[in-house]
């Protein structure tokens, strides 16, 4: 049941809970309880909204930064990650396999802002060996949702 609830709210966190209960053949109260429990257990970490900023005529610049670091003695990568993810500009930090260590996603209002963050805050960190900044030119799909076009029902009337 938890998995079903999660798979629905992952795609639509605003789903009407009464509707969801009817689809899953259960009571609304049960769903409310489960959601609360999962929030407490930090299985559900938040309910953000997916926004196509390009269409909102708000200037946004985002970048994916590849970061190589030296892990700190006794604490591994987690301590370094913490130094990075605590900056509010940082959207996401992933520890990854491959030729560098962290993938850091950051967002700013201008190119300058992003560049300043990298040169003034990220690069000077003790454990950071090198960074490579990749600016996002266009976002096609995010969170499983295609940003470009809204799906329209093109089915024609047919006798069946």
């Amino acid at each position: 049941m938890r998995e079903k609830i999660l798979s629905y709210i992952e795609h639509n966190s605003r789903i009407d809970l009464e509707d969801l209960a009817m689809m899953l053949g259960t009571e609304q109260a049960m769903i409310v309880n489960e959601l609360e429990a999962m929030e407490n257990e930090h299985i559900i970490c938040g309910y953000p909204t997916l926004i196509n900023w390009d269409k909102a005529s708000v200037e946004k610049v985002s970048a994916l930064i590849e970061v190589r670091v030296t892990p700190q003695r006794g604490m591994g990568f987690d301590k370094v990650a913490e130094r990075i993810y605590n900056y509010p500009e940082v959207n996401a930090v992933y520890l990854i396999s491959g030729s560098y260590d962290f993938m850091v996603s950051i967002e700013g209002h201008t190119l300058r802002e992003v560049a300043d963050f990298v040169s003034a805050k990220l690069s000077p960190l003790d454990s950071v060996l090198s960074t490579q900044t990749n600016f996002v030119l266009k976002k096609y799909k995010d969170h499983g949702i295609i940003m470009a076009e809204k799906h329209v029902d093109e089915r024609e009337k047919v006798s069946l």
Partner: protein
Amino acid sequence: MRNPLNKTITEIKPSGIRKFFDIVAEMPEAISLGVGEPDFDTPWKVRDEAIYSLERGRTFYTSNSGLKELRIEISEFLKRHYDLDYDPLTEMLMTVGGSEGIDVALRAMLDPGDEVLIPQPSYVSYEPCTILAGGVPVAINLKEENEFRLKPEELEAAITDKTKILIMPFPNNPTGAVMEKADLEPIVELVKKYDLFVLTDEIYGELTYTGSGHVSIASFPGMKERTIYINGFSKSHAMTGWRLGYVCAPQVIIQQMTKIHQFAIMCAPTTSQYAAVTAIRDCDEDVANMREEYNDRRRYLLNRFKKMNVKCFEPYGAFYIFPSIAEFGMSSEEFCTRLLKEKEVAVVPGTAFGDSGEGNVRISYAYSLENLKKAMDRIEEFINELRG
């Protein structure tokens, strides 16, 4: 000038759904729950395979029977899913949708005057195809109290010396009814006793919501030799526009069907057949995901009607529910017309699928939850107004 037309075809009535949708077409704002095709896109890997086949220049005819590689995959699929054992080379024909299979099977099997038993409500093509093949359609009126399943006594009462074929339209469009193993057993006995053939239209087989899953009548001992099994990709793999189905039957029947198919069609669409290899081989999980989502919507609609206190048996197949509107004292057609005009929601009158559909309407849940909810809110309003 002479009458250019054939008498038989001019006497056949156009489909009842068609007429209804002509009205819907004039109301662009109406929410429709009328369409009988999946709202999902064909899985991307299938579309991708089609593009690849075009890039490779695979644009020729296939053999009349269809792409051999595909038939082999289908035979594996049928074994894996329904415990059916068909030789891909001699007992299978790829057709232009399941509907071509129905037409060609009837034409290959019927002599003038042969009777075909058609449980109704059911898909609109069985009756006209029977007539066009020179046969005589005989309706078996299924009952709501039996959840629109076919009962042995109903079948036996309809059998005459002239009966040759029983059509088995399960999981059913428009009722969503299924026939489980225990329902099929007595039917199988009668089919053997009266030496009948069964044309089983299992196009919705993958969309079955019983715990035990779909059971094919062809899988019963002694039934393979008297069964014409119809299936296709339209419903299960959301591939309606690809026009691809298949028929499995004893070799003697497939041989004659292949003649008709060869003269009338040549072969099923080549691009679709290449894409279908991927669909049948690699898409079990995609199909399962779609089935799960349909099932959630099915439960949603059932619970909505339950809350409204509208009588509705629980259907376990396809993507339709078939609630009763008998309590409102009007015909199905009148109910649907008023619902459309007053609340701008289109559902299909049960009578479009046979007289025994009177008193019910077909609601398709091949729509997003958002759409279903909006439509159900309006239906609820309508019903509350009718009840006063």
